[in-house]
């Protein structure tokens, strides 16, 4: 695993905080510096960090984590409907409700381990998705998605209350600063920084858990649960605690999603959404601190950018080529962009899993080591490479 980072948590944390705070500038050259995507980076980062506490440390592969994300979103929107558009009560309820659901589902599912545990969590999530989709329509508004209407009670709203989500008057969707950076626009948005604070907090707690005796215990369960049991320790409370913590992370992420855009759809809980967070974690590097955030950003980036490239865009890219060749290339690439972005993602995922079993972070570490060894031979190059692992 990431030998480079482990030795120096403080540096890692500082670099992480800086990278998150400078997110809008760092992502600008990639055309990703706009509120919606940046918010998603932060929110799904939290989701994946939480998932990694369970999967990366205990090895329990939950295939139903999106259920908590959905529960968090629904609770948050209900708070918007009942109280006001202030995000604080929404997040509090999201965290509480998701913790309760995690406790219940975890208590039942954790009676089994391995594939049975995965199937149980998957079953619960799918059940909740189906319920939200049809039976519980009065609570979830079914397929349309739960949203806030102007005739909702909103008891704390007052006469001329703010009609979009806000933190004591600071509107989540406001962009407070925008400028050109390397030819692309960088947009600084309140919602992103609000989510970023939670991301940093989530990351910090995750570091503390990884380095604590509790984290050690969880790792022991991962390496051999039987042995832990034979030594007379009861492992259930530990796994349940890890499950609830990661459920709360998911609920927080769901709540934040609703804070950025006050609508909760049932498809947030579908098994594909649960699968996505597994992908994020494995792609980034399961069991590492930074990996899940990296994986989450990677997948969200692809979803947002590649799915929007259409044939027209391709034609403009390759317009310098002769017509026949241009059309040929566009025809081939057509299958990998737009609605075919999953194909690109799948290919990349395969490549990563086959060649970088430790995930993207493994790749970064290898690159770092390679460069370091290179630097030993030619010490004058060391200076230029220091910045590379910042992301």
């Amino acid at each position, binding site marked *: 695993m990431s030998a480079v980072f482990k030795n120096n948590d403080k540096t890692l944390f500082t670099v992480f905080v800086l990278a998150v705070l400078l997110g809008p500038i760092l992502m600008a050259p990639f055309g990703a510096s706009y509120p*919606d995507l940046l918010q998603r980076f932060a929110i799904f980062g939290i989701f994946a960090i939480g998932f990694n506490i369970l999967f990366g440390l205990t090895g329990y592969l939950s295939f139903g984590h999106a259920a908590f994300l959905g529960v968090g979103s629904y609770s948050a929107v209900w708070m918007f409907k009942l109280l006001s558009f202030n995000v604080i009560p929404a997040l509090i309820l999201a965290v509480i409700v998701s913790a309760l659901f995690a406790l219940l589902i975890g208590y039942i599912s954790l009676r089994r381990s391995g594939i049975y545990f995965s199937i149980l969590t998957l079953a619960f999530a799918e059940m909740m998705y189906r319920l939200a989709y049809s039976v519980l329509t009065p609570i979830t508004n079914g*397929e349309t998605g739960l949203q806030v*209407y102007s005739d909702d009670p909103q008891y704390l709203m007052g006469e001329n209350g703010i009609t979009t989500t806000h933190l004591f008057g600071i509107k989540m969707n406001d962009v407070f600063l925008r400028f050109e950076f390397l030819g692309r626009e960088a947009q600084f948005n309140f919602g992103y920084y609000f989510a970023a604070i939670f991301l940093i907090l989530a990351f910090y707690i995750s570091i503390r858990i990884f*380095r604590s005796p509790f984290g050690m215990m969880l790792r022991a369960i991962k390496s051999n649960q039987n042995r832990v049991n034979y030594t007379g320790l009861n492992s259930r409370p530990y796994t349940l605690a890890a499950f609830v913590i990661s459920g709360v992370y998911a609920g927080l992420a769901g709540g934040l999603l609703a804070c950025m855009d006050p609508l909760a759809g049932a498809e947030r809980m579908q098994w594909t959404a649960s699968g996505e967070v597994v992908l994020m974690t494995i792609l980034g590097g399961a069991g590492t601190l930074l990996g899940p955030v990296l994986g989450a950003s990677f997948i969200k980036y692809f979803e947002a950018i590649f799915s929007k490239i259409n044939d027209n865009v391709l034609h403009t890219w390759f317009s310098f080529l002769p017509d026949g060749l241009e059309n040929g290339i566009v025809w081939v690439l057509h299958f990998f962009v737009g609605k075919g972005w999953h194909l690109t993602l799948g290919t990349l995922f395969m490549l990563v899993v086959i060649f970088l079993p430790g995930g993207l972070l493994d790749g970064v570490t290898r690159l770092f080591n390679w460069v370091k060894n290179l630097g030993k031979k030619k010490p004058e190059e060391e200076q230029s490479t220091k910045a590379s692992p910042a992301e």
Partner: protein
Amino acid sequence: MSELKTSRRGLLKSGAGIGAGLAVPTIFTASSAAAYVNEPTGSTVTLGFNVPQSGPYADEGADELRAYELAVEHLNGGGDGGMLNTFSSKALSGNGILGKQVTYVTGDTQTKSDAARASAKSMIEKDGAIMITGGSSSGVAVAVQGLCQEAGVIFMAGLTHSNDTTGKDKKANGFRHFFNAYMSAAALAPVLSSNYGNDRKAYHLTADYTWGWTQQESIQNATEALGWETVANVLTPLATTDFSSYIAPVLNSGADVLVLNHYGGNMVNSLTAAVQFGLRARQVNGKNFEIIVPLYSRLMARGAGENVKGIFGSTNWHWSLQDEGSQAFVRSFGEKYGFPPSQAAHTCYAQTLLYADAAERAGTFNPCGIAEALEGFEFDGLGNGPTLYRAADHQCFKDVLVVRGKENPTSEFDLLEVVEITPRSQVEYAPDHPMFAGGELGQCNPGV
């Protein structure tokens, strides 16, 4: 392995540091000079086409995208101009909108509210789209319409047929050219009465979301007014592909009519299942068993093949219409793509033209100006006869077509025949009709 240790002092210091760091950029916050969100300043204007490219409505989405591309071509002066030549308003001259070249971005709604909103958001925030259009599911249309209202851009609804879109979920920034479930029912009822009589027992299978619910409610109301009886209404999830478990109970229900409140891939599958179960060959209560599909499209008819023969339904528009506008559209669409357009394509094309025309007449891209230009706008030449964009709920009122699956189709596109063109007066309703009540249009929002 060094631990991350934080002293109280250190935490306070770094906390203050981060706080200050966050506060710094606010110093530079300048009040934005734009009068409305995404005001186009260059020589181009960007429209956002948000259509389903995957999911049960993907066929419709693909056709919508073709229509949008054609509309952009015509707006920029390319092609033969299509319906620009037949449109009663002559504000558009083929040099873009307000002299700006029209460009567009596309996105995939995946027929999911969440994905559709994310896609629309990125178009508005990243690509600077001034108008969002599309959607081939009412759930998605309602969700995206709400988003556009919040963000302060215009939403020109594509294929969305639920009463709610311009009923309880209507928004000041949203406009719908397509007809709705109430109109379908109002147009269908007299035809059903004359063909199947006034003593029928109907069994409803309904797609379980806003469109299905309002469609079912509308048909039930209209047919019960004829004297029909409603035996049962069963809700089916939108993602269902195998309907056999839903069809089997129909056989023993005593019903003699099956109403499929399904659209797109759903309808293709449920109709096929119904025919395979031999429903159409059955005799119940001494009458032939009949199937009705309230909302029809050519794409669905093609998907269901032989099974659609003789089945009644309604549609917003059909390519076989003989008026000038329809013919011009079918001609240019056919020349570009080699086959006739669907009703989804037609409504999306018309919406794009209507938006462009409104901007041209208002002299601005400001959503409030455009809303004003569209409200109460009377026009003709876009294929449905004289049409009104009603100011009270931003719904278009025009003639509705009642169609039937053709017995002897002459080509793979000639699958539906128009039985009756129901005049506009017959499908009109008051803005506060109970099926549409509950929502509020609110104020137009320019986003700044």
